[in-house]
């Protein structure tokens, strides 16, 4: 591929996938600014990969894979903060109850708030399956797990969402 053609391909990929990658990042990180940063970084890495002339089999799954790795890096950064530090510096309150949110927002927004409380391994697959519309096979490729593990995880994620919903709705 020539340089210009490669640039064209890159921009086309951006136009097609920017929103979905951003949405995925948003649901995983629950922070709009961080989601924007990760989306941009995802496409920078995608360009670097293209520039090295490496082969890409499934473009969509590949972009999700990059984003997923960056999100994991973000989580690691997050873990280095202590709770006291967070309370002091950014006024983060551990005792925030999402039930308050559930009462004020409409059902779909409430569900989004509910999903934010799920453990990340469940949130990850639930968002990929039901927000991004990835197949089990694609999710398996992104997460590096087997298809069976992914389908079990989706099943458990739905069960957990259901119990949480019944508990608080």
């Amino acid at each position, binding site marked *: 591929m020539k*340089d210009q053609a*490669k*640039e064209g391909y*890159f*921009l086309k990929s*951006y*136009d097609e996938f*920017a*929103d979905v990658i*951003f*949405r995925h990042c*948003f*649901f995983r990180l629950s922070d709009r600014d961080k989601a*924007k940063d990760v*989306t*941009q970084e995802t*496409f*920078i890495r995608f*360009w*670097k990969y293209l*520039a*090295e*002339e490496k082969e890409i089999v499934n473009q969509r799954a590949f972009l999700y894979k990059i984003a997923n790795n960056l999100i994991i890096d973000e989580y690691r950064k997050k873990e280095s903060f202590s709770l006291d530090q967070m309370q002091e510096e950014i006024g983060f309150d551990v005792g925030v109850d999402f039930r308050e949110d559930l009462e004020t927002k409409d*059902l*779909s*927004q409430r*569900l*989004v708030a509910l*999903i934010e409380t799920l453990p990340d*391994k469940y949130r990850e697959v639930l*968002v990929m399956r*039901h*927000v991004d519309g990835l197949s089990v096979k694609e999710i398996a490729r992104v997460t590096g*797990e*087997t298809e*069976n*593990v992914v*389908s*079990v*995880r989706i*099943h*458990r994620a*739905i069960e957990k*969402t*259901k119990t949480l*919903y019944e508990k608080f709705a």
Partner: protein
Amino acid sequence: MRNLLKQFKKGSREVRLTVEEKSAMRQALLQFAQENPVAHTSQAKNSRTVVSPYSFMRKARGFKVLSATVIGGILIGGTVSFAAEGALPGNVLYPVKTGVNERVRGVVAVTPQAKAEWDIALVERRLTEMKEVGSLESIPSETKEFARKNVRKYAERAQRRIVEFDDNDDDERALEVAENLARVLQTYEKELLEDIHKKTSEQDNDEDKQANVEIKKSSKFKKETERVRTTVSTSTPSVKIENSINNTEREKRPSEDTNSIRIKKSGTESLEKTIDDIREVRENLEKRNKEKKAEYERRKETRKEEGQKEEKDEERKTYISAPSSESER
């Protein structure tokens, strides 16, 4: 739940980049792509230097004494660890077997699956030791108890591995490991039971022989006492009664003695306890496997149904979209 998921999808669609955000990011990315063209990136990649993992060997070339010591150490260590492989609990080399040999082999198992297999192999090793130690009368009961506790400990470790797989949602592997562990426990349960039967039957034979000798002795004694009694009984009736009581007591004695011998001699208590332990673990595993299999089948069916539904939806979409594209033309 489907309704809930639909609502969730609907809510999620509202999350997107604004037009300004999207175009600003596009601009930034285009600038980055132009500043970092193809050639530049590949040059940067080639400029990296890679340090050989064997570079330390070059530095150690002068230390001949050191290498001789290392080789000597390896040889001695190797011989000790080889000798330790057959060690049983209570043996001097047993800590080398569990603390060095098995730990080294455990480190070699990298993947979770290999680790689980190695844990099952360890349970098998502990059971073999228990089998050997349990059948030897010369081994003190504390050592047998130690071997029994070891079996429990390693079985618990293997079970923890199953829980780890389960937590990781890898129910396929959890089931496989649980089935393998249950199979190993069942095999050894049978073998240990056979050992106990064999041992008790051997002891019964010994006891029978001993009892025969005692009966012979007692019958001789009986004849003599009978003779004395008949001579005495004619003179005093109270002595007769006393004698008859003594006789009945003596008849009882041999059977009581054999019972006490059985308790002292058998020494199979630790084996019996081990069987109880592993039976409990095995039954729990089998119960768990049954439940998990049923759950697995249920999920498989729902997945199948979902797949069929998705296929139908896609077919319907293509059917709807086809005429409209023609009309556009």
